[in-house]
């Protein structure tokens, strides 16, 4: 590289990073995925905008010298390999293998539906779906199926965090299903690459290629994974930390990538599998994961995502019908499959829809997949552009749609779903026992539960330790033989002495009955109720409710 070329190379790099950061931050401001900003940065710097209006600057920066172009493509390769390495690190293999039945059902249907839909559509209408070579029909159809089944973990994870549902059952199901989807998607895709014979310059036939892939995956995920698990603490102990571990991850990743590239499937597949083998170890510290995530995300991934826009003119290759077809297929296939899977595994309507739309965000991973297919000549510019736009649209739309269904779902689960107007009484009871008697009576008559058993259980619990909390709230409860939890509410405007922690009388008395065999349900509801009514001024306001209906609507307005 001459001095002039080196200068241009370094300037191009800094321009790419500058634009990536700028647009990334802009989109972050609007609470959108940063990846999208990076793609936009590429479109602006590439032939679409800069190349059209300032062709000289564009050529000088990215096109003039072959050496610079090669150097840049080397760096973007590095970017995508590291990106996939990190994606692999985040797949918790043990979790995926021991997946709960629900995650298995969700991901199975979440792959089956979009995959078959995409496959059938592309196989029977190849021209409408933008095929470039008809003889590649089967591979092309398989590819479209795979492309529609992919879920992007990073975007999903971020959305879960923003919506504050990461540490919930929904969040857990979405994350595990997305991991399974990812794994299945990449394995199918690697086989596809093998079928196409891309770069199979080393003379491996399709059959022996598949056998090699299987052996590679098996050796890494079973044997080397265990060795790495024992090796990591040694690295932490005898090399500088976290430097030594970070280095090890990259070295192993690059070797794996080199191997898969050599046998004729893309380098990223090796990096991805190595990532999984390392990431599964409990010895890999959370902090190390975050550090590697940060430097890949902020430096190497942007280089890759910007480079996409540098190669292609997004306006010339924009094909509205293709874009609409892809978006439509994705929404129909992915959302319906995942939603059905979630519903079959016992989630209610709104939670299932939240999961369905959550898994529909294709994000960055789709773009990686598309890039490789494009480089391999399987798809043309138009299809690629449509895929990128589909990935962006699905990623942007998932958060607001999910947030809508989460709000809806909240009313259908937890405390609110058990709150019934006929179980609410405005009472003049003068003592604790009188109040509990009244509440037990309405529950007993409404649910065919023996009054005496119910009353004894509640009183027994009350005697072991008072259930009076703070701020006029009392929460008598018991676990009895039941299928569904029951809530009854007594409102005492004058207040009843309840031996509370803050010595205040109880004005809002919530009787909570939960199934005997499931202590976790009781725990969930107790902590939900305690949190919901923690605000001091709240209960006096609730006691002013005109009637039962008014009370329920007041409670619904609480966060």
């Amino acid at each position: 590289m001459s001095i002039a070329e080196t200068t241009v190379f370094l300037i191009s790099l800094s321009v790419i990073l500058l634009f990536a950061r700028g647009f990334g931050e802009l989109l972050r401001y609007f609470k959108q995925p940063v990846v999208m900003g990076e793609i936009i940065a590429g479109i602006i710097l590439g032939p679409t905008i800069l190349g059209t209006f300032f062709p000289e600057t564009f050529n000088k920066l990215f096109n003039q010298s072959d050496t610079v172009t090669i150097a840049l493509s080397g760096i973007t390769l590095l970017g995508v390999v590291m990106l996939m390495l990190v994606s692999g690190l985040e797949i918790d293999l043990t979790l995926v293998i021991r997946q709960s039945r629900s995650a298995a059902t969700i991901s199975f249907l979440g792959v089956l539906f979009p995959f078959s839909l995409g496959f059938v559509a592309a196989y029977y209408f190849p021209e409408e779906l933008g095929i470039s070579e008809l003889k590649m029909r089967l591979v092309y159809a398989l590819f479209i199926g795979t492309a529609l089944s992919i879920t992007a973990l990073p975007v999903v994870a971020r959305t879960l965090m923003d919506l504050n549902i990461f540490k919930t059952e929904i969040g857990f199901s979405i994350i595990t299903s997305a991991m399974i989807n990812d794994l299945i998607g990449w394995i199918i895709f690697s086989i596809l690459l093998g079928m196409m014979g891309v770069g199979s310059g080393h003379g491996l036939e399709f059959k022996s290629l598949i056998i090699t892939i299987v052996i590679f995956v098996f050796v890494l995920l079973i044997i080397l994974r265990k060795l790495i698990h024992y090796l990591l603490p040694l690295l932490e102990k005898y090399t500088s930390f976290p430097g030594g571990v970070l280095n090890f991850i990259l070295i192993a990743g690059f070797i794996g990538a080199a191997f898969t590239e050599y046998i004729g499937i893309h380098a990223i597949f090796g990096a991805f599998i190595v990532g999984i083998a390392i990431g599964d170890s409990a010895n890999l510290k959370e902090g190390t994961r975050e550090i590697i995530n940060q430097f890949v995300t902020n430096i190497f991934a942007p280089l890759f995502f910007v480079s996409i826009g540098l190669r292609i003119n997004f306006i010339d290759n924009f094909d509205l019908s293709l874009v609409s077809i892809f978006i439509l297929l994705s929404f129909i296939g992915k959302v319906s499959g995942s939603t059905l899977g979630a519903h079959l595994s016992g989630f209610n309507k709104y939670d299932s829809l939240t999961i369905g739309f959550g898994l529909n965000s294709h994000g960055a991973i789709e773009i990686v997949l598309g890039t490789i297919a494009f480089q391999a000549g399987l798809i043309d510019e138009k299809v690629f552009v449509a895929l990128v736009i589909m990935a962006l649209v699905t990623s942007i739309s998932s958060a607001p749609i999910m947030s809508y269904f989460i709000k809806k779902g909240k009313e259908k689960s937890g405390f609110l779903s058990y709150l019934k107007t006929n179980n609410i009484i405005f009472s003049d009871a003068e003592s604790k026992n009188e109040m509990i008697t009244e509440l037990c009576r309405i529950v007993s008559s409404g649910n065919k539960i023996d009054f005496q058993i119910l009353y004894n259980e509640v009183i027994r619990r009350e005697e072991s330790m008072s259930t009076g909390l703070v701020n006029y709230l009392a929460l008598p409860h018991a676990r009895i033989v039941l299928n569904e939890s029951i809530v009854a509410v007594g409102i005492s405007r004058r207040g009843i002495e309840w031996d509370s922690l803050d010595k205040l009388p109880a004005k809002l008395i919530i009787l909570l009955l939960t199934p005997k065999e499931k202590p976790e349900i009781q725990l969930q509801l107790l902590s939900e109720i305690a949190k919901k009514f923690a605000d001091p001024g709240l209960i006096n306001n609730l006691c002013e409710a005109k009637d039962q209906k008014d009370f329920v609507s007041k409670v619904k307005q609480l966060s």
Partner: protein
Amino acid sequence: MIFKKIGLAITFSPNGLPLIKTAVRLKNLFNSQLYLIHVGHRSPQVESQMNYLIENSGLTQESFHMIWQEGEPAKAILRAASENNIDLLIAGALEKESVIKYYLGSVARTIMREANCSVLIITSPIRESRPFKKFCVSVDFSSIGETTIKKSYEFARLEKAEEFILVKEFEVPGLAITVYDTGSTSDNEKRKLIWQKEEEEKLKLFAKELNLTGINYSTVALFGKQGWEARNFAKNNGSDLFVVPSPPKKLKFFDKLFQHDLEFVLSQLPCSLLIVRE
């Protein structure tokens, strides 16, 4: 009564005597019956070794039941335990076994994985039988978790333990990925602390419902892999008895390959271990 019938798998190793002394001590502590189980051919020589152990343990002839078994040791012990309705099986074990032995399965590990009753594993080398002073109890919010707390708390009360810590782990897979898109490590740290607090509040509430009185207890919530974090906590804390509820499904070879929960503990015991089964 915490345990009605205690079974002890007897060996003639250097640990034999301290183990039987431990069993006798617990028998008296729990006021339960004691079954001594020996697997192997019953010869005069073996009997005299057995008599030596019994005499030195302070047991009188009427105060225990002797069971002689033949066959594959782990299976024979488990069979004897279930035939006699034993509800606590005691055995000695190494803290860590060689990799090969780990995958092939030793007698003690097989008992831990497959027993139908609660299992108490005393880690070697055992010097003398002393009361357990520092209890570390790993719990989940299930009914077996509840039983585990109740039993171990009663145990700790009888032992007059100095420390009783309830540990709850919680796992949030994929958290590190959020750093990828606009997240930051410090945000994640903050979020983890909030979750930790939430989880600890729940644990406190859970424990409160059980009305534990007698000795003080403390609660800890840990972020990380189930089994792994609690095990490390018990180890670093210097606990001398680690208590866990039994997993809902029995552990198989496959679980050694993809370790989780209890399997993390079994691969390297932090200290003596009590697995509670209902």
